[in-house]
């Protein structure tokens, strides 16, 4: 549409841009509301009209990490005065921090452990999936494999299964070998889940690396393995990083397997956070704080990944 814009076109454009901004606001409001609620005092989280301007507090985060109970009687002035700043915040909210009877140490809520479990399981399963996936992708990309398309379809199809379908037999098998509620159990499941994705995406990336590079290295006296590690891998690094971020996010966000396969020791954050709502009046500021911390890694990764989103989300079907 080269040439001079007519007045009508100009107005169409302006309307479209205005509409984009309205859409942007609507799409981001839920996310903004999570962040906003995470820094609100509890009594401002559920007001009508909604509280937009308020003095931010970190009280929800203090409560998120500590075990608390209802305050039966007010703390004495001395107790209150000698309490550290974060404990005062809990007192101010009408609750008190639960301490270990013997050592007097503050008892923590389950959130920190769940967050740590999420990290352990996501990071290890990502490394395994990307490592194995890259090797397999190289194999399919560079060598003749009988029935290649069938194998690739088989690999992809394992990803398409609904989690609950896989979870039923896995639960029974894990029970036999004692992998229920262990990090190892979840790591295996997430690795299997992400491996198919990693193979498909990495095959696309490796297909794009010219074969001439390795062939030149082979002629120069490298072995195939050396050529793979010294020539192909450095070229594939960007692709591997993008794949790793995708695998990490998938594992980090996963809910169904974690809900079924873990309950305490190895439970990750996604099944834990909803379990905190329970019945009665939930403290939404604490839930928002937990959600907010949980979303930060994903938000950062989304920005790092922005140029690869199309390719990753379409399983490598569309590249650009």
């Amino acid at each position, binding site marked *: 549409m080269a040439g001079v814009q007519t007045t009508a076109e100009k107005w169409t454009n302006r309307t479209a841009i205005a509409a984009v901004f309205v859409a942007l606001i609507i799409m981001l409001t839920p996310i903004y509301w999570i962040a906003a609620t995470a820094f609100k005092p509890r009594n401002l989280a559920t007001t009508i009209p909604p509280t937009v301007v308020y003095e931010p507090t970190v009280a929800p985060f203090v409560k998120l990490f500590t075990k608390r109970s209802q305050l039966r009687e007010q703390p004495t002035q001395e107790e209150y005065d000698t309490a550290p700043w974060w404990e005062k915040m809990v007192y101010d909210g009408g609750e008190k921090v639960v301490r270990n009877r013997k050592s007097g140490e503050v008892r923590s809520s389950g959130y920190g452990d769940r967050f740590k479990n999420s990290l352990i399981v996501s990071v290890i399963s990502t490394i395994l999936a990307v490592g194995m*996936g890259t090797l397999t992708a190289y194999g399919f990309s560079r060598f003749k494999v009988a029935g290649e398309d069938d194998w690739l379809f088989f690999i992809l199809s394992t990803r398409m299964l609904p989690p609950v379908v896989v979870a039923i037999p896995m639960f029974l098998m894990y029970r036999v070998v004692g992998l229920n509620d262990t990090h190892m159990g979840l790591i295996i499941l997430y690795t299997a889940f992400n491996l198919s994705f990693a193979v498909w995406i990495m095959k696309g990336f490796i297909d794009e690396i010219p074969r001439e590079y390795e062939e030149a290295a082979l002629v120069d006296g490298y072995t*195939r393995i050396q050529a793979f590690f010294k020539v192909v891998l450095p070229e594939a690094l960007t692709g591997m990083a993008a794949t790793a971020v995708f695998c990490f996010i998938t594992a980090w966000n996963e809910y169904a397997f974690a809900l079924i396969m873990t309950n305490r020791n190895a439970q990750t954050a996604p099944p834990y956070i909803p379990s905190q709502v329970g019945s009665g009046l939930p403290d939404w500021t604490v839930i928002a704080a937990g959600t907010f911390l949980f979303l930060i890694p*994903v938000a950062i990764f989304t920005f790092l990944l922005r140029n690869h989103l199309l390719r990753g989300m379409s399983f490598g079907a569309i590249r650009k």
Partner: protein
Amino acid sequence: MPTNNMTRLDPNSQAASRGLSDLSIRNLFIIPTIAFLIIFNIFPLLYSLGYSFTDFRASTNAPAKFVGLQNYRDLLNDPFIWKNFSITAKYVLISVTGQVVVGFGLAMLLNRAIPAKGLITTLLLLPMMLSMAVVGLFWKLLYDPNFGIINYFLGLGKFEWLADPDMALWAIAIVDIWMWSPFVMLLSLAGLSAVPKHLYEAAEIDRAGNIYTFFRITLPLVAPILMIAIIFRTMEAFKTFDLAYVLSSQPTTELIAIRLYKMAFQEWQTGMSSAFAYIVLIMVVAITNIYVKYLNKVKAR
């Protein structure tokens, strides 16, 4: 694009015969993955195929009794299961249609010179990267009839979203549309940017109207990519568990995955649920097959 027709290094050449042979490297690289997937995906399914012919309950020590095809017969004759299927079909229809309309609409709006376009696009894509269970849960607060911001901003008073049996499925689908319209938008944008500019110029010279241009040029050229998005989202919506499970416990929102979960892990009807899982599995494999066939067709162009 698979580049299989490229010349591969002659396996008998001197260069290829140094170190491990190509054949052993290939096997070394591929077999562990295949083995891993067989052990942890295929073997469990065979394991549960066996259970699907029994009345096994994982909550008791009673030995499993072989019942033949009884489970399958019971399931296919159970009117409640068909109810679950029809709820799921309705859910898929609402949510995928919504995603296509919103996602494609956004892509059309974005497909022009816009200040800070890259940043805006990335921000719009953010919802689809988030955890469905964790963020979905937070929508409970947004939907709250007493102090939810949705009712407040839409002026709906004390409208019940999740407590109303007829509304709950829509409420879940709206969250799904919010999360996954960006996905359709992302793919549509790729399709739109691939439409050659000269086609629009030619249409302009011919004084073709906007509507004509849209239906005769834009839509047909974007259709293949849009189709990928639709099939992909259909598959995912069919499997929906997280969102519906955290948001609602209404019988009217009991999707197939939720019924299956309850049957297996709350009622502990292990044998029956294994059979049910197989019925679902066959359906998913069928849709996946269509998807992959289509993908290869599009790629082949």
